[in-house]
Every structure is written in C-alpha cells, then in structure tokens.
C-alpha cells in the first residue's frame, strides 16, 4: 500500500474521496426490483463457492452413492417391492434424501456467514433484507439440481430407468428439487438460531433422520408397525417420494399391482406440502435473520 501512496497520490486521492454533498450514487429502482437483483447477487456469490471448490458438490454425492450401493446390492434383495424392480423403487427415495441432506448446507452456510461477520456487513448495506436468505436458498436449488442430475446418472449405472413420459420424468426431478428448496428454509431457520456452523449441522440431523428413514424412501411402509405407519404414510417426505416415484414409474402400485397412469391428487398433495413448509418457515427464517447479531 505504501508504495502506491507514494507514486500516484493525486490520482488516488480522487478514488477515496467521499461524496460529502449531494446524493449517494445509488441507483433508485423499485423495492421489488432490488429484492430480485440482490437475491441474484447473493446467489451468484454463493454459487461461486461451488465453482472455486467443486469438491463440495462432488463430496456431497458420495454419501448418497454409498446409500445407493448399500440398498441396491446389500439390502435390496431382501426388500419386496412387488411388481417393480427395487432399484426403481429406491432411486426416487435417494433423490429426496440427497436434496434434504443437501439443504443442511443452507443452514451451515448462514451460520458461517454469521461467524465471519459477513451477515453484519450485509445488514449495514442498503440491500433488500430478504435477499440474504432468498439468494442463499436459490443458490442451493441450483446446487441441488446438479447433485440430483449426478444421482440420476449414478442410478442409470446401477439399472434405474424412468418409465413415464419425458414430461413426467422432468416433473419427478422438479418435484424433488423444489422440495429441497422448501426444506432449505427449515435448515435456514436452524442455521440462524445456531451459534456455530457445527451446531447448525448437529441440530439439522435429528430433524432429518426420522423424516428420511421413517418414510417410504427405502422400504414399503406396509412392513412397519402400525403406529409407525401412521407417521410414515402421512409425513411430507413420504408424500413427496410417493409422488415422485409415481412420476418415475409412470404409474402407481396398488394391491401389489402396477397401474399405468399417475394419480395427480398425490402430486398435488406433495406440492401443497412444499407450499405449506415454505409459507411457514420462510417468514420464521426471515425473522430469525433480522434478530441475528453475530
């Protein structure tokens, strides 16, 4: 710095000079415009991290790949999924599991930003209050989408196939990714309430574990005890997996038979859950952000 000061002090004085009289150089546009533009900026910033450290995406597929191998080749043979191959039953569950565990990074990332003082800087800027969270969750949607595509490739390598139309297959993936988005608001709330990134991770896990494993992700719920079935059949993770699975199969299973055609009521129910989770947890997360002081 000192040598720069010495060589071009005249020029540099201009570049530091504050705007003492007159308005700030801010571009004045509507609040809605800035809510989107700031969210875009924050999402850009969060995605750059994955560009700089691509291992973050690669490593987040390792755990789900191990689950695929474990259930496909170790446990799968003992699990009866009736008229459809187990791998086709399994993969929609794996997709949802992947985005849910991926959503944990939303909370961890926010807790990290709180610890480094970055959230504090954001709060002193004229940026839209909502953008820190919408930008973060949007970036995580993009990330989740990439990871799910990777998992589809992995699925194809172990024998998984889409059986529905292209539109149904696309919708199956879309449903999973949007569910990940809804859940990232839950993770955001946990991350903002946590004191450290480690605490955020530790606090998210006990929420995820029962939702993912007491569900229809890996085994048909019919083999579970009745009291557990009551939970497993009606909790959002199962509902989203069931909808996505129907879209993957291009049909639904009833009485151990596969019927062609998707039950759109089930898909609608899954969409309602996503809207509901977002509607409840997004405002709670925004409130937690406003209160948060690192």
């Amino acid at each position, binding site marked *: *710095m*000192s*040598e*720069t*000061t010495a060589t071009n002090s005249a020029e*540099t*004085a201009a*570049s*530091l*000079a*504050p*705007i*003492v009289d007159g308005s*700030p*150089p*801010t*571009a*004045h*546009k509507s609040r809605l415009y*800035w809510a989107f*533009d*700031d969210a875009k*900026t*924050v999402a850009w*910033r969060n995605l*750059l*991290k994955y560009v*700089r*450290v691509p291992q973050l995406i690669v490593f987040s597929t390792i755990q789900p790949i191990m689950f695929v191998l474990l259930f496909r080749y170790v446990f799968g043979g003992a699990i009866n999924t009736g008229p459809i191959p187990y791998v086709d039953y399994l993969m929609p569950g794996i997709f949802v599991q992947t985005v849910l565990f991926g959503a944990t990074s939303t909370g961890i990332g926010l807790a990290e930003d709180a610890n*480094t*003082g*970055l959230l*504090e*800087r*954001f*709060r*002193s*800027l*004229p*940026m839209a209050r909502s*953008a820190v969270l919408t930008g973060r969750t949007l970036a995580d949607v993009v990330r989740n989408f990439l990871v799910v595509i990777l998992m589809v490739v992995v699925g194809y390598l172990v024998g998984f196939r889409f059986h529905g139309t292209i539109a149904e297959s696309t919708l199956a993936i879309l449903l999973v990714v949007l569910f990940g988005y809804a859940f990232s608001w839950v993770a955001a709330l946990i991350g903002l309430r946590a004191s450290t990134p480690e605490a955020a991770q530790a606090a998210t896990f006990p929420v995820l574990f029962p939702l993912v494993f007491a569900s229809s992700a890996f085994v048909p719920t019919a083999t579970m005890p009745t009291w557990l079935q009551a939970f497993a059949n009606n909790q959002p993770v199962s509902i989203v997996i069931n909808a996505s699975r129907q879209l993957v199969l291009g049909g639904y299973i009833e009485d151990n038979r596969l019927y062609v055609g998707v039950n759109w009521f089930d898909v609608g129910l899954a969409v309602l859950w996503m809207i509901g989770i977002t509607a409840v947890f997004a405002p709670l997360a925004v409130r937690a952000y406003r209160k948060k*002081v690192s």
Partner: protein
Amino acid sequence: MNDNAIVVQGLHKSFGDVHAVKGIDLEVERATVYGLLGPNGAGKTTTVRVLTTILHPDQGSASVLGLDVVDDAQAVRERIGLAGQYAAIDEHLTGRENLRLAGNLSHLPKALTRQRAGDLLERFGLADAADRPANTYSGGMRRRLDLAAALVHRPPVLFLDEPTTGLDPASRKDLWGVIDELVADGTTVLLTTQYLEEADRLAKRLAVIDLGVVIAEGTPQELKARMGGTVIDVGFADHETATNAAIVVRSAPELDAQDEDIRVDGSMIELAVDDGPKTAIVLLRTLDANSLTPTTLAVREPSLDDVFLTLTGHKAEDGADHANLAERGAA
C-alpha cells in the same frame, strides 16, 4: 446546516440482563475522527451497531447526517461504510469479486461498481492479488480489502470498529495514513479502539467508555491535562524497592504529592506532577537521601493509558497492553 455528522442522545441497549449501553450521548463533528475508547465489553461495538442500523436502540435516539437510524434506516445505509474487527469478506471470492459484491448490494450502477472496484484494489495495493481468492490473502490484505469494501459507495460517514486490532505495526501505520486521507477529503470517521495510542494519534475528540457509559469526553489534550502536566517514571531493581520508594515519596513534605498522583506498577513508580523537570530534581534528592537508587528515569507527557487508569481505576485491557508491549518491542 448542522455541523455534526453523528448525534447520539441518551442511548440505551440491553441484551437480556446485560445492559451493554446505559445512556450514551455523543456529538461528532463533520470531517473529523471521533474516537470511542474503552475495554472489551464497554459498549463500543453496541453503539456502532446501533449507528449502522444493525441494532435498534431500546431508548434514546441516534442520527447520522441528520437521518434517524431507525426511521430513515435505508437512507442511513446508503451513506455509511462499516469495517469491522473481523474482516467481513467472503473467503472463496476474489478481492475483485468481494468489492463487486459490496458495490452491487449497495445498489451502485454495475459499471460504476466495476470501475470503483478496480480503483480501490489499485489504491490499497491489492491489484496484483485482485483475481486471487481472498483465502490466499494475509491478515493485513484481508483488512485492507474489508476497508475497501466499506468504501465502494464513497460513504461520507465511516464506522471503523477496532480496525487495527491484530494488525502488525506497519499495517497499522498504513491504515492510519488512509484514515488521514479520508478525513482530509471530508469523511467523518467514528473509530472504536482499545489502543490509546491510536486514539491519541487519530482522533480530534474522543469519549472514554466504560461499562456502557461515557466517563470522559474531550480532545486528547484535554484528557491528558486531567493528569497534570507531566509524568515521571522511576524504575527500581524490584517491586519491593519501588513500594518503599512510593511510601517515601508520599510522606516527603517537599514533594507535596497527593495519593492519587502516585502509582506503583511492578518495579516502577509513576508520579503525576505539574512541573516535571523541577520536581524530578527534588524527587531524586529525596530518594538519594533515603538510599533508594533508581535504575531508570523518564520525564514524559501523560499517555492515554494514564488517563484511563486515572478515570476508571483499572487498566484499559490486558490484551491491549500485551499488544502495546509487542509493538514497542518490535519498534
């Protein structure tokens, strides 16, 4: 037009049972550096957070450039810069990207952001490292990048929360130079610090804060004047000798010293007097008459360390003392 860039009146802020700020009043003149001096937990950072719209005050009011920090928060945010104790930068972004992030979120036109980012990187000696991720930067570089990020939108009011904590002496002097330049150009700077030397060097006026209240306010010269004109430091072989010497000095009628003017610090005694050189002669005679031989002797102006001790009865902060010692050692 009001000449004060920052006005704080009767500010209170609590966190649960902890009353961080208990009625602070401040007036900061435009285009000057105002120092908030105090130990950790004194309420400096809380005051800065209220002024930068991060926290809402429980009671009292605060305004920046005549804009209320609660009612006109958005307008305040467009006119302030904040650089903190922890460099608030994104590790994975390059220096340039960090500045673009700050500029975009400050709602500058995109082209202007790009131009300002380039200028600032150049100005802060980061041009060569501009396109490297910030996690490859040294501590001093991170702090400069953080300050640059706070300056992207050319704010007329700048808040620096312990900007030099943890910096090496050379980086600290560099930063002081930048602050001088900013103020010369008309920036108003509110600076918090634990370093008394820093407040003395930079601030036109300063407030000493302890336990959430202002315990003294004025120019550094005024605060030093409270100590009497000069301080005489006398060193002895050990603490015991120094203690004996203090007893002798206290009871010597020819020195006419008040109890609060004498302090024993390790093997040193400090004596605050009105007329240093003259008193020094009398003091040495008295010590000699009592067979007490000093190992070191210094007649100096009182430092803000002395002021803080006199005002609060305790040291500014242990950490700050260590850092000061380290700096003296390095210098």
